[in-house]
């Protein structure tokens, strides 16, 4: 892999500057704030609480429900408020990505709500949302096997790079967002769009896994900071 420099001055395997803070909201049971590049994301967690939506109720386990939402002012052209097809899909895969780490079997008939608000978007919001949501879940004190972390790799100018910016995402040829449980290395979310050869995909996946490991450290630091001071 050559040592070329990307449009924003990063190396191929370099993350954008990232900052995570746990416990930022008062009402929520758990919450987190995350900035990565130009993304600003807030996550709140409520629960486990009794499932008041009957069709979601499971007699033998708790369930997780996610809502990924973009603020109208988070993007260049104002986004119409409310869910659209994209955010519905992201809500669903985010719930699926987080579920394996949660020990919800201990909470039958209950529900955990995860609300992800994209205050400002600059590429890679779904992974950033998952990363922040895990921190908020820990902050809520929900028993977990692992802290899920998300990160994307992709292809820009025929080169596989880590953590695509908005510009790279728009101009790039492929995007591979993943989420994983870092203790076991199990992947809990994987998407891929664009054009990748098998070899490129392998590179992208390996790169994204490395990225996840770096972000995982930052998640843990944020939690330690919160509980060392608070």
């Amino acid at each position: 892999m050559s040592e070329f420099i990307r449009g924003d001055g990063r190396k191929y395997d370099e993350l954008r500057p990232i900052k995570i803070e746990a416990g930022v909201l008062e009402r929520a049971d758990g919450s987190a704030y995350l900035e990565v590049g130009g993304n600003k994301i807030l996550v709140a967690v409520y629960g486990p609480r009794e499932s008041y939506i009957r069709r979601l109720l499971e007699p033998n386990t708790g369930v997780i429900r996610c809502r990924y939402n973009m603020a109208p002012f988070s993007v260049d052209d104002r986004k119409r408020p409310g869910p659209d097809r994209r955010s519905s899909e992201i809500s669903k895969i985010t719930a699926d990505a987080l579920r394996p780490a949660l020990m919800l079997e201990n909470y039958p008939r209950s529900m955990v709500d995860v609300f992800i608000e994209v205050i400002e978007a600059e590429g890679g919001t779904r992974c950033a949302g998952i990363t922040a949501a895990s921190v908020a879940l820990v902050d809520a004190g929900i028993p977990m096997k692992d802290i899920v972390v998300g990160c994307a790799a992709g292809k820009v100018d025929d080169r596989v790079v880590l953590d695509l910016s908005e510009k790279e995402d728009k101009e790039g040829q492929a995007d591979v967002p993943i989420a994983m449980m870092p203790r076991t290395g199990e992947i809990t979310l994987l998407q891929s769009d664009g054009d990748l050869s098998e070899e490129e995909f392998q590179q992208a996946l390996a790169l994204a896994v490395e990225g996840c490991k770096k972000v995982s450290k930052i998640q843990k630091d944020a939690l330690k900071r919160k509980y060392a001071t608070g």
Partner: protein
Amino acid sequence: MKITPEITRESITNLVENDKREDGRGLNDYRDISIETNVISKAEGSARVKLGGTQVIVGIKSTLSSPFPDTPDLGVLMTNCEMLPMADPTFEPGPPSENSIELARVVDRGIRESELVDLEKLCIEEGKHVWMLFIDLHIIDNCGNLFDAAELAVMAALQSTKLPVATVVDDEVVLSEDETFDLPINKKVAMCTFVKIGDKMVIDSSLSEESVADARLNVGVTDGGSICAMQKGGQKPLTQAEILECVNRAISKTKELVEFI
């Protein structure tokens, strides 16, 4: 539906009867206020307001639009509010609730009726092209008194708003890439919200105070001291004397509030 225990109702009411409150404030005291502007770089204007534990983010986005037929030389303001489910365990996703619509409309009334934005200067070509400003309110933490926090946030966001310079060339609007102008604003407005607990009117209610309040009164006042918006809410009536007392208190209190903007 959350039920407030009778014992909580009694304790809050008894405190207020003696001019005291749960958190140690007086009946005419606000919680700590902090305002940050330009928090969203992709928005034309933005602000984040904390009023005690209550947090509101406002972003302002602009688009070019055609004017309404009855006001061909005026720009357009639109206010929307999302009471995000993250802000409160009882807020639900989905289309805006009645409370959310009321909040947006009352806040909008303060801005619109005070005529603090010079809408004529948002007209690019009469009858054809005007600026349309979307004011989007995001409620992210509800610890009571959303109205006053939202009005402060909208006011601060409007003051931080910059729009690209627009010119008309061959019937088409051309936006400058680097030149901007400040949104023309000629006054400030703030809102004071009172709730009635027992026989007293309490300013800047906390969540628990709201849960036991009989009625609510919003009073929007400009920095020149004129009343530009009012709204009564809640299930019980207010006396004329109570309303006049609130207006009087609001006019002096908003002088302090506009200092924060």
